[in-house]
């Protein structure tokens, strides 16, 4: 999944939670899913950051 897709999905989940649309049974599962997406986005962000640093300072 791309970073943008992940962000979109996260936003949808957040809105569903805020509107109280999620049943309590599904809440934990959805929160877990959201947490996974957040981790994945952070990872992608970190990787991009490292790649940019490597490109700009190949000798470092």
């Amino acid at each position, binding site marked *: 999944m791309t970073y943008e897709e992940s962000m979109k999905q996260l*936003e949808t989940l*957040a809105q569903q*939670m805020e509107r109280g649309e999620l049943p309590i049974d599904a*809440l934990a599962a959805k929160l877990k899913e*959201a947490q996974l997406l*957040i981790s994945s*986005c952070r990872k992608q*962000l970190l990787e991009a950051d490292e790649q940019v*640093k490597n490109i*700009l300072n190949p000798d470092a």
Partner: protein
Amino acid sequence: MDSLSLYELNNLVSSVIEQTFEDDVWVRGELLEGRPGGGGHFYGELVEKDELTGGLLAKARITIWARTYSLLRNRFENETGQTLKPGLKLLLKVKVCFHEQYGYSLNVVDIDPSFTLGDMVRRRQQIIAQLEKDGVIDDNRTLPLPTLLKRIAVVSSDKAAGYGDFCDQLLNNEYGLYFDVRLFPALMQGARVEETILSALDKIALQDDRWDAVVIIRGGGAVSDLSDFDSYNLASAIAQFPLPVFTGIGHERDETVLDRVAHTSLKTPTAVAAYILDYQVAHLARLEEIQNILVQSSLRKLEREHQRLDHLSTTLPLSFARVRDRQEHLLQQIEERMHTNVSMRLERENYRLQLLEQRVQSLDPALLLRRGYSITLCNGVLVTSASQLKEGDVITTQLANGKLSSKVLA
């Protein structure tokens, strides 16, 4: 019948002519043929042709005795730039003679070179006028010279000193410049000048992309006979030639028609070589100048690009860091929103549960029993009304702690 011997007749004619032409006569005519003969005398034939048809109108033998010839020849050649040769229009001062044995002839005692010169000028003017009328006279002169004058097709006689001078000047140049020179042989004097030069030009024209320019040269002699170059066909071919034509046909006085139509006309083969050499040297200098300009501007451009890159290399990481921070912030926000939301939601549900629990607890009968209330059963059936019981029924009373049995008295 009286008769005369041939000698007597010729003698008579001779004396009549001598009496009639006591003084010398100026006569105009064209030299049909003529050359120096034995003993240094010049023998030739003078004719007059019909101007329109070219048909022969009159003819006479001419003789120039050796002593006169040696004087006249020098003057004539010096002033006209050419030798006494067939085709020339002459104004001759002659002594009209009739010799019993050799017949009628004219002994030349003087020549007016300005008459011949005038005729040559007239001829040139006619050719130039025709070329102007053809609209081609300036065609070759206005051709742009190529950037490089390196591949030179030379029309000349391989025996002429001029060709050697040209090659020597051009090829052994002090700058070490290389030239590709090829000779296309042609006769540079005599009746076949036109024919052989045209043939050489044809050969060059067949490979005109192989050459940068054409050079027509001949070495100058003591006397340069240039009238052969005053040819309409030759001038027309040169005027319309696709490559620039240089002439260096070694004359000192008048210019020929070829000089008028050629791209560049110079006095001698050496002068043509010097011109081409100078052109190349100037071009090389210009090339060096352009090279310097290119190098300088390239260096400046490189320097500018370096600066831009330096700038970008500092700003790029910053811009990316800004993007990264914003995204990080967004992720944090969304994470917080969710956590807050989920915990609030859980708290709310918990509270609801508590309320429910309280409600449930408040309904528990045990609570009532502890407050002193009791539950009465008769035969396992809840007694809520006295009318359910009659005397003697045994009832069971459930208390907060324990049960007791009683009998209904009334």
